[in-house]
Structures are given as C-alpha cells and as structure tokens.
C-alpha cells in the first residue's frame, strides 16, 4: 500500500520536474523528508521499503558497471585520468578537511568526503543533453570526469566498508573478484549473451537476478554488495541488450530508493547547518577543480569555468554512500548538501553562458584596474 502511494507521489514529481526541466533527484528526497518520520510522519520505513531501497542502489551500481566497458575505457584511459584527477584531489581533500574541522573522526570524515566528492552523473549528463552542450570539448571532459568518478566509486565502496576485521583477507577477496571480472569480461557476453535475446520472460528475469546477485555475494563472501554489482555490470558490459532490459528496473527501484531514503532521514539542525557549509564548499570545490582542469586541458579559464559549473550537482552516489555506510549526523549533513547542490548545480549548468559572460567581464574590469 505504502509503496503504491510512494510510487504515485514520485510519478507526479517526475512529471513536474521534467516539465520545468529541474532535476528530479532532490524532489524525491525532499518528498521523502516531508512525508517521512522527520516530517509529517505519514510513512515509516519498514522491511519492505528497506529491501526496495537496497535493490535500488544495487541496480544503480550494476547499471554503472554495464556502462563501463573495459575495452572502451582503456582506449581513453589517458583522457579520463587527466580529466578526473584534479576533480578528485581538490574536492575530496577540501570536504575531508572541512569534515575534520567540523569535528568528525577520520573514518566519518573520509565517508563524507567520499560522498560529496562525487557529482551526480544523472543530473550532470542530463543537463549536458538538455542544455544542448554536447558539441563543446568541455562537455567531453565533463563526461570523462563522470567516468573517472564511476571508477573511483568502486574503490570508495571498498575503502568505506566497515567490516574489515581481517584486512588482508578482505582485500584478497576483492582482488580475486576484480581479477575474475577482468578475465571473464571477454568471455561472458559470448557465453550468456544469447539468453538476453530470447522473447520469453528469461531475459528480464535473468537480468533482474544478476543485478541483485551482489546482495548474495555480500552474505556469502562478505564483499560489499555495491562493489560486486559494479563488477558484475562490468563483466557483462559487452551485452548491449542487457542495458535496455535493466533500465526500467533501475528507474523504478532507484526512484523509490530516493523517496524511502528521505523517509528514513531525520534532519537535525546541526546536520542542516553543517550541510549548508558543506554545500558551499562542495560548490566552490567543483568550480575550482573545473577551472584548473580546463586551464590544464583546454588552456582556457572560461572552459574551466564551464566544466566547473557543469559538475556542481551531487546526487545518487552521495546518497548511496551515506545510506550504505553512514549512521549519525553525517547523514543529515550529506542529505542537505545533496539537495542544495543538485538544485543549484542544475541552475548553474543551465545558465553557464550568462555566468561565463559576466565572469569574463569581471576579469576584464579587474585587469584594467590593475
């Protein structure tokens, strides 16, 4: 019953945000916050909603893996590395420092930095398409940054995993899974690709099951479900049809995840204030890293500003990481920061032309007064 109402709320929100070309992710989270235990109290998280939320993030990570074709990535590894490097160094360390200053211990500061370093691929890519920016070289760099971040996510899931009582054994398991993925990614599509071409229920059922297999891996091998999901996606990324089959599952479960996540969060005042600070730092960080990346790769500060403005929005990955590994006030803070940066980020990306014009005018005035 609750799920149907949650779904209905999200359908309305999806339609409205589409109409006004606003990002839908913050809308789902805000609706969850309003209807949930911290707001009106109309919904409470239960076992079913938790399972759906978990399925949502696993589907998301599996889908990310599917879009990371090892062969295509390795062809562009230089570009991807150079595009993503400053973004990682600057944003991760900035948020880490602020989190430590705010009183978090190193583990939690590391989690907050992991969560808020990563931009929202969904919002960023959507705004590149909707704002018709795909002709620009800057947009390509933004896309490589997103790919770089997607790869780093896998690493961050492993590094944030708290159940590492025997670190060497844990890393060994992760390495074996990674090596297996690499070895099998060439054969698996040929071996089971045919299963996804059938006309009966097998393709959808099988795709759904494989996507959720990560949860089983976590139970049997204590490897984080999210990491396995990315690896499984990578392994099967050669099967084009699988992407089409899994997309509707991912859409439904992920939207419900955002909503149910919102329900479970109790925004504290402290968290909210910290969230505001983190949002400001997160926005400034991306603009700085964009400027440096653009200056470095395209020899232009203005290109850099474009890159920065396009990558401000945080979203699904931040929420996923804080959902999977967070517990205290960092959850409130990251949630608030995600809602703020996603809305401001979408706005900045849409108006980047105007902002660039005023920025270059300001720079001119500044240099003429010198």
């Amino acid at each position, binding site marked *: 019953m609750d799920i149907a109402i949650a779904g209905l709320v999200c359908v309305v929100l999806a339609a409205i945000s589409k109409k006004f070309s606003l990002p839908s992710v913050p809308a789902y989270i805000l609706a969850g916050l309003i209807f949930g235990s911290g707001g009106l109290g109309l919904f409470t998280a239960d076992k079913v909603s938790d399972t759906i939320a978990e399925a949502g993030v696993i589907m998301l990570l599996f889908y990310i893996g599917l879009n990371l074709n090892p062969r295509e990535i390795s062809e562009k590894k230089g570009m991807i590395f150079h595009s993503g490097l400053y973004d990682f160094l600057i944003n991760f360390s900035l948020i880490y420092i602020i989190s430590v200053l705010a009183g978090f211990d190193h583990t939690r500061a590391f989690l907050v930095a992991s969560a808020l370093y990563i931009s929202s691929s969904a919002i960023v*890519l959507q705004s590149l398409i909707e704002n018709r920016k795909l*002709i620009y070289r800057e947009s390509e760099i933004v*896309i490589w940054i997103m790919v770089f971040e997607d790869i780093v996510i896998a690493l961050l899931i492993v590094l944030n995993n708290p159940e590492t009582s025997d670190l060497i054994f844990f890393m060994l398991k992760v390495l074996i899974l990674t090596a297996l993925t690499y070895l099998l990614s060439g054969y698996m599509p040929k071996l089971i690709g045919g299963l996804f071409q059938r006309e009966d229920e097998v393709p959808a059922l099988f795709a759904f099951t494989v996507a959720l297999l990560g949860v089983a891996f976590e139970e049997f091998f204590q490897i984080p479900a999210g990491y396995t999901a990315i690896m499984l996606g990578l392994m099967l990324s050669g099967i084009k049809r699988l992407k089409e089959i899994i997309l509707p599952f991912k859409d439904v479960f992920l939207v419900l995840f955002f909503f149910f996540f919102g329900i479970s969060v109790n925004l504290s005042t402290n968290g909210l204030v910290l969230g505001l600070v983190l949002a400001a730092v997160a926005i400034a960080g991306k603009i700085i890293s964009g400027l440096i990346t653009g200056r470095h790769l395209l020899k232009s500060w203005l290109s850099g500003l474009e890159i920065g403005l396009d990558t401000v929005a945080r979203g699904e990955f931040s929420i996923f990481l804080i959902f999977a590994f967070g517990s205290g006030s960092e959850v409130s803070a990251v949630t608030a920061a995600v809602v703020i940066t996603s809305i401001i980020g979408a706005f900045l990306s849409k108006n980047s032309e105007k902002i660039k014009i005023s920025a270059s005018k300001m720079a001119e005035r500044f240099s003429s007064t010198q």
Partner: protein
Amino acid sequence: MVRFIGLEGVGTKYELETKSGDKIAVIFLLNKRIQVYIQEKSCEKPCSIEITEMEAKRLSSILGGVPIEKERESVEIDFMGVPDLTLAMHTYTVSKKLHGKTIEELAIRKRTGANIVAVSRGGKTIISPPPHLIFEEGDVIVVIGDKEQIEKFEKEILGI
C-alpha cells in the same frame, strides 16, 4: 576529417570540421534521439536541433543527394520486428501523359514489376487502388518496388 568518439552514458558523437572552418556535430543519444549541432566559424554559439531517427533518415537522403523533388520523393520504412526488411516507397505526381489511363491499361505490374500501393487525390487517399482506377492529372501515386523495378517504372511508364 570526421572525429568519432563514444561518450559513456550519453551516446556517440561524430564531429566534422568543414573546409571553411564551420563545425558540425552529430550525437546519437542513448534514447535513440539525435542531436545535430552546427556552428559557423565566426560564431561563438552553435545552433542545435534534436530529431528522431526517421527525421535523420530523411535528412540523410537529402544530404546524400537523392533527388527529392516533390514528384520523386522516396521514403524508406524499417520494421521493428523484421530488422533486415527495408521497404522503399516512392511518390510521383501523375502528369498529363497518364491522365485518363487506368492501372490495368498501363500494365504497370506486368511491364515493370512495381506496384502502386496508394493514390492521393484532392486530399483523399485510396489505399491499394483497384486496377480500373482512372488516373487524373495531379494525382500523387505511391509506388513500391526494388531499385530495378522503380527504374523501369520511371522509364517505361512515366517516361522520365
């Protein structure tokens, strides 16, 4: 020089710079829509359009130099369920020469192998016209056939 690059999570991009320095970019999005950008050399901001696959096909046949004057337009139809089947339909306007003649009289099918599948007359459409239908000047006819049959039809029936 065409530059081709896969954009993860977005689609595939083709970029072309003309001799005069203008820029064209075509992006095939994952949702099957296609964005086309053009940017004049001296212009800072590109123009863009977003089109469907079908519209892209029409555009490509125009750019490909297929003659698409009104009387010789052709449309290709692909069927989702039958991937290797493509039907080409051609439209022609009936000239004075054919006025008053019937399909049967002209023995179109027998002489050329091509088939008339529809006739449009004064805004009304006759699908699968009967053999005794009398052509009138200005009728738009839709003809189906392979390349050879269409060539024959154009030569023997229309005399073009």
